[in-house]
């Protein structure tokens, strides 16, 4: 279906990534946000708070991030498309409810405008250091989806994808911005509502009485109801059976866990989104995501002028990780170079995929700014020697 025109600010805008992310959410149909403002993500909720009365929906500034992350889950079960917006310190507080969203299969979007950490760290300066936290931060096994935009335009475009994926798979979806992408201002083209595809919730057609909250077909994704429509459901963070009732035994646990993981793992080929540039025939491949992909692009351009066969593989979707594609390339590529604004996180996944078939060179950065393109260039030239 198409986007609701009420939420779509069609036109050419010169706005930053935070504002564009908010517009993306509105265009995607998000009508409930609960948040606790935190730099460098504040502008997202500021804009949402001022826009939502005109569009029709609700913003609540909660007492903290713990409350924000549970309020959105409640609103999702009341039928809304929902999001919360934060940065590292807030994300740390939300971990419990990320697990709750995963086990209750509540469609929701968590926006993380990353800043330097740990703890209060660098409130006004960028990092990409929450990449493992979103994958593993809540206890237990679960799967999530994460997207890494690299421009204000993508903050708009990919936000719509984020909401669509949340509805399709009923998992928490993470929108992994960083301070630079959030505060960088560029042209953002917002198309007409009729050109924006949005995916509606997978509502049940079953009657109350025959509906079971976690009964599924081959898609492994159950149908949903809206609280208040007369369905008697039990939604719990305890291990549950297909009726949603607590079933605390190893058999129910295995059945539920397999499905929670497989709905993402068995669909990873559909989910993986890498943008490749000059990868075929390359001796060296730079693997990047988010703002670092733009900096890496600048370095790669210079390396090519110097005659190095270097390709670029940019992960637009960072989780699930594109392990199969990287493993495929590992058999013929000499080296992978992984710049990221953290001390070495996604490079661990690259190493796991490569299995020693090529060398993997990490270019860590402690945060506070982006890499110098020269640093990436130097590593490319070293690897080419």
């Amino acid at each position, binding site marked *: 279906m198409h986007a609701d025109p009420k939420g779509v600010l069609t036109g*050419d*805008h*010169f706005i930053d990534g935070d504002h564009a992310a908010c517009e993306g959410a509105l265009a995607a149909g998000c009508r409930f946000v609960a948040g606790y403002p935190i730099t*460098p993500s504040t502008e997202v909720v500021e804009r949402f708070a001022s826009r939502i009365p005109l569009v029709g929906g609700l913003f609540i500034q909660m007492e903290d991030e713990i409350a924000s992350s549970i309020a959105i889950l409640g609103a999702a079960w009341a039928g809304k498309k929902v999001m919360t917006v934060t940065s590292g310190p807030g994300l740390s507080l939300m971990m419990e409810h990320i697990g709750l969203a995963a086990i209750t299969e509540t469609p929701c979007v968590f926006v993380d405008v990353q800043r330097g950490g740990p703890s209060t760290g660098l409130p*006004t300066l960028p990092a990409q250091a929450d990449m493992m936290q979103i994958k593993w931060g809540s206890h237990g096994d679960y799967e999530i989806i994460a997207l890494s935009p690299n421009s204000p335009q993508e903050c708009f475009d990919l936000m719509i994808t984020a909401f669509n994926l949340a509805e399709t798979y009923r998992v928490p979806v993470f929108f992994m911005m960083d*301070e*630079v992408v959030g*505060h*960088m*201002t*560029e*042209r953002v083209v917002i198309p007409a509502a009729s050109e924006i595809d949005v995916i509606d919730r997978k509502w049940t057609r079953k009657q109350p009485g025959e509906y079971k909250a976690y009964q599924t077909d081959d898609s492994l994704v159950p149908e949903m109801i809206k609280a208040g429509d007369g369905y008697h459901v039990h939604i719990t963070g305890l291990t549950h059976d297909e009726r949603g009732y607590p079933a605390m035994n190893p058999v129910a646990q295995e059945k539920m866990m397999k499905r929670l993981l497989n709905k993402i793992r068995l669909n990873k080929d559909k989910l993986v989104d890498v943008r490749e540039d000059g990868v075929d025939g390359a001796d060296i491949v730079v693997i990047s995501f988010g*703002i670092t992909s*733009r*900096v890496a*692009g*600048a370095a790669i*351009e210079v390396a090519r002028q110097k005659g190095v066969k270097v390709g670029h593989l940019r992960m637009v979707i960072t989780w699930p990780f594109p392990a199969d594609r990287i493993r495929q390339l590992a058999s013929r590529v000499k080296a992978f170079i992984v710049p990221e604004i953290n001390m070495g996180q996604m490079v661990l996944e690259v190493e796991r995929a490569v299995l020693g078939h090529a060398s993997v060179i990490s270019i860590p950065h402690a945060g506070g*700014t*982006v890499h110098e*393109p020269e640093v990436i260039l130097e590593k490319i030239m070293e690897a080419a020697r």
Partner: protein
Amino acid sequence: MAKTEIRVGGLGGQGVILCGIIIGKAASIYDKKHATLIQAFGPEARGSACSAQVTVADKPIGYPYVKNPDILVVMSPDAYTQFIPQLKPNGMLLYESELITADQKLPAGVKALGIPATRFAEELGRRLVLNIVMAGFFTGVTDLLSFSSVEKAVLDSVPRGTEDLNMRALRKGYEYGCQLVGKGN
């Protein structure tokens, strides 16, 4: 010019960021080029140092920061002193000539052009529009943006009810700039 890097510096409250936004918006929305704006982001407040970095290019922009600008626009002595060493040789310095004494050693070949923007703004009725005078001056002395694009960018960036004042400020700066570089307008 394939890629032009610009730094706009001054004091919080002078409209430094808006001046950068107008340049970026005119370039990317109305002149259909690519533009990236990064604004100094920190615990800055009114009256303290403030700056914007704008890159304008024909192709999509990768690295977003401006390290060595081709054009430096400064509205305060502190910004002038801080950023002048970064200006590229053969670059262009545009400065507020009654607030700044341009006595520093300039990088080789730099073309320095001053404008009494604050006085002009005051004569027009409000000191606040000095940033728009500067944007007009920028448009007049560089060949980066078309005047009509900057006009549109100003119109959709300023508060309603101030359009007339801002248009006069823009034209004042533009005409002064054109005259200074001997350009007909």
